[in-house]
């Protein structure tokens, strides 16, 4: 084995093992420990088809700068065993200069992995664990990883100690012994995957998933009621909100289905409480009729759609960006509303909070299009700034003896809303075409007026700079939305290192279409690469319907479950000659 100490700014580690082996726990410990020492990072998990207890892989990436997407190629693969590991093999290609750690008693290394050309180190993980009373294989694996990437025993133990606090000292000691054994083993090899110096200017990392961040954003934005029906990969939004809303004096109710959950949220919001629900594609489909009611009756509501592979039940545990169509166009009749999309895991907080603000300010249903890649990824991020997005509904109080006109025609289209309990404000919210007072009407002028008003309030609203993120400069542009932003940014960074200047335009506001701002951002573009994760090219199609993109256009897209990576995007630009 040659001595190759490879200086790196980002290291990727995969830990695989069959059911019960604890590979995910090992990965989590590694991530948190890295965070405590001042690094950044991200972890995804890949699990087998079993409901639970099947094989699992922790996919960890650590870096000395914030990371927004997982690795496309791995430096280090630690296999606690190889059971069914071939299922994952395609998801974690190894670098040729990478390292594979295998237990010799686990049988042969799967072809797809060994063919990577990476070096193989045989380490008897099981035996090492057995030698330690109460020792566990995954703690050996954690120690090994720590050794190869330069984390210390103490770094790891500061995390493990807390986690095992109520399991007693013996458990903690056993873990320490395992970690030490793992690190000791790593010393036998000359491989080192160093991340570089930790960024200590910004201490105080947060460790958070996209699903948690959206929930937190919503609460920050003023949401105090949630209705829930579980669905993968959105359930964690609801599971995080449940105790958290209680903490802040709100409530979550579990509904019997999505028809109920959306209506519970609308009912709560009608009562004055900013409200939310979260779901995925199948649930969103069921909510569309009532989202139309919210639009017509002008009741604010936030619906988070954590997208997964479609159509129909599709693949619940994998990511896709294919609910753009339904979110924008899935209403019967014309129902102006808002659609926004977080760009990265960290941005879930920002966008969640913004969504609550938008919904309340405009009294409009607001759909947040997150996806599995954001929602179920855990990242180490900087402590976020405070944002000034708060739910601020224009309410009504009696100021004259005039009868209250719930749907009064105002210049900005937003009509003051009486909250039940307000004297003199009684009205009936209605999904029927209605007059200014809210009375059912079949009059042409009422329909036209209210349609104009609802269109106006959404179209004329000032979305400011939040509509999207623009980074870099150049005549070559990558135009994308949502979770592709992370890999696209990374692609642009690596292209920059090669001397290729590329600008990124990432849309956070999807509907209403931010035509002016987008056109402005694309001015002078000679080449525009549109990137998205959908089979039919929903985003491309949507762009085409709404604006004319300057210059030459290419379109890189595919359906899930395989996420689009930074390297692929960069290759698209490189190949464009």
């Amino acid at each position: 084995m040659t001595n190759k100490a490879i200086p790196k700014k980002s290291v990727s580690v995969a830990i695989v093992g069959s059911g019960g082996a604890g590979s995910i726990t090992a990965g989590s410990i590694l991530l948190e420990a890295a965070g405590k020492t001042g690094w950044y990072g991200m972890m995804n998990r890949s699990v087998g088809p079993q409901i639970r207890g099947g094989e699992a892989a922790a996919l960890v990436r650590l870096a000395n700068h914030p990371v927004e997407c997982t690795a496309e190629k791995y430096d280090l693969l630690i296999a606690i065993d190889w059971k069914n590991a071939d299922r994952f093999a395609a998801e974690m290609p190894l670098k040729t200069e990478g390292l594979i750690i295998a237990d010799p008693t686990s049988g042969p290394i799967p072809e797809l992995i060994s063919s990577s050309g990476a070096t193989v180190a045989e380490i008897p993980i099981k035996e090492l664990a057995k030698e330690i009373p109460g020792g566990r294989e995954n703690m050996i694996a954690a120690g090994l990883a720590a050794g190869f990437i330069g984390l210390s025993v103490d770094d790891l133990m500061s995390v493990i100690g807390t986690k095992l606090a109520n399991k007693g000292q013996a458990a903690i000691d056993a873990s320490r012994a395992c970690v030490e054994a793992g690190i000791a083993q790593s010393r036998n090899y000359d491989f080192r995957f160093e991340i570089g110096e930790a960024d200590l200017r910004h201490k105080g990392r947060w460790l958070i998933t996209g699903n948690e961040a959206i929930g937190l954003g919503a609460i920050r934005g003023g949401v105090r009621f949630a209705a829930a029906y579980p669905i993968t990969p959105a359930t964690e939004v609801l599971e995080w909100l449940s105790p958290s809303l209680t903490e802040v004096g709100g409530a979550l109710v579990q509904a019997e289905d999505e028809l109920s959950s959306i209506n519970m949220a609308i009912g709560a919001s009608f009562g004055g409480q900013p409200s939310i629900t979260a779901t995925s594609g199948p649930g969103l489909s069921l909510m569309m009729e009532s989202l139309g009611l919210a639009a017509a009756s002008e009741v604010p509501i936030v619906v988070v759609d954590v997208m997964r592979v479609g159509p129909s039940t599709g693949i619940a545990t994998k990511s896709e960006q294919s609910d753009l169509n339904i979110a924008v166009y899935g209403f019967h009749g014309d129902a102006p509303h808002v659609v926004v999309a977080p760009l990265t895991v960290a941005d879930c907080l920002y966008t969640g909070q913004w969504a609550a603000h938008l919904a309340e300010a405009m009294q409009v249903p607001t759909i947040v299009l997150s996806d599995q890649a954001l929602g179920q990824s855990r990242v180490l991020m900087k402590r976020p700034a405070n944002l000034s997005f708060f739910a601020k509904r224009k309410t009504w109080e009696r100021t004259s003896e005039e009868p209250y006109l719930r749907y009064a025609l105002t210049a900005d289209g937003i009509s003051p809303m009486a909250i039940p309990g307000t004297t003199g404000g009684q009205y009936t919210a209605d999904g029927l075409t209605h007059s200014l007072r809210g009375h059912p009407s079949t009059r042409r002028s009422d329909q036209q007026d209210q349609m104009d008003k609802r269109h106006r309030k959404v179209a004329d609203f000032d979305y400011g700079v939040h509509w999207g993120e623009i980074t870099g400069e150049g005549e070559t542009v990558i135009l994308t939305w949502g979770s592709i932003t992370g890999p696209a940014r990374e692609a642009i960074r690596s292209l920059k290192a090669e001397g290729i200047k590329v600008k990124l335009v990432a849309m956070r506001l999807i509907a209403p279409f931010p035509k002016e701002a987008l056109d402005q951002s694309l001015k002078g573009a000679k080449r525009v690469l549109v990137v998205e994760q959908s089979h039919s090219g929903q985003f491309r199609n949507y762009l085409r319907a709404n604006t004319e993109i300057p210059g030459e256009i290419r379109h890189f897209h595919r359906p899930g479950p395989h996420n689009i990576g930074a390297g692929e995007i960069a290759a698209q630009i490189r190949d464009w000659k």
Partner: protein
Amino acid sequence: MNAPTKNKFSARDFTSDLTPVWCPGCGDFHVLMSTTKALAELGTPPEDIAVISGIGCSSRIPAYTDCYGFHGVHGRSLALATGLKVASPGLTVLAMSGDGDGFSIGGNHFIHACRRNIDITYIVMDNRVYGMTKGQPSPTTEPDWDSALSPGGTGLSPFHPLVIALASGANFVARSFSGDIKNTTKIIVEAVKHPGFSFVQILSPCVTFRPDEKDWKNTVHPASVEETDDPARAARRIMTDDGMNTGILYRGNRAPYKPQVTGKGVETIELERQFEI
């Protein structure tokens, strides 16, 4: 919220100036009257009351009251009402709809609202037909009732709303006849007062598509037995009655659902600690 002041209101204070679209003679006029009378008697000011409905002739009722109202989509009144009551526990919440809205498309919310036992009152104006869509059989329609959609009748045995309500956990179950304004008013008053989920079926004739129901005034009769708090006993009685028995048939003691809104009311910033490492 404004503190309830007893007996200072009349039914007129709960009635809006909008003319109902109902056919002359429709039973729903009487339900509106009984409801507004009951609300006057209860003495809660109209601005502290919300009347929530779905879609149907019967579901048009909220705008005819002078309370806050929500005329939602077909079948979802109970879900709207649940969210509203949990988030605004100080309001008096009534859900009011029809047999099609409540028992056909809304059947799932019905059984789960009974089970959830939130403190709301659910009034179903049962005319055994889809009135608004011009005369199709509903779940409570007799099996041999002839219609364009089911020539010769559906052949299905009718849905027993009161039995289902009991079996699902409703805390108050009653039946009334729209034409009997006095008793209907009384029952609504009791239903609203009773904690938890109260269900009132009001037989309310559709004079247009079910002219035969005009005869209901002759066939309804007060329940011959006393009200009970034993669900099994109530179920047995209702299961074997003729569907025309009126009165309060069950008044239970199950504690109403208390959503966990009783949180500490901490600042958001405290929630954020959990993410710090």
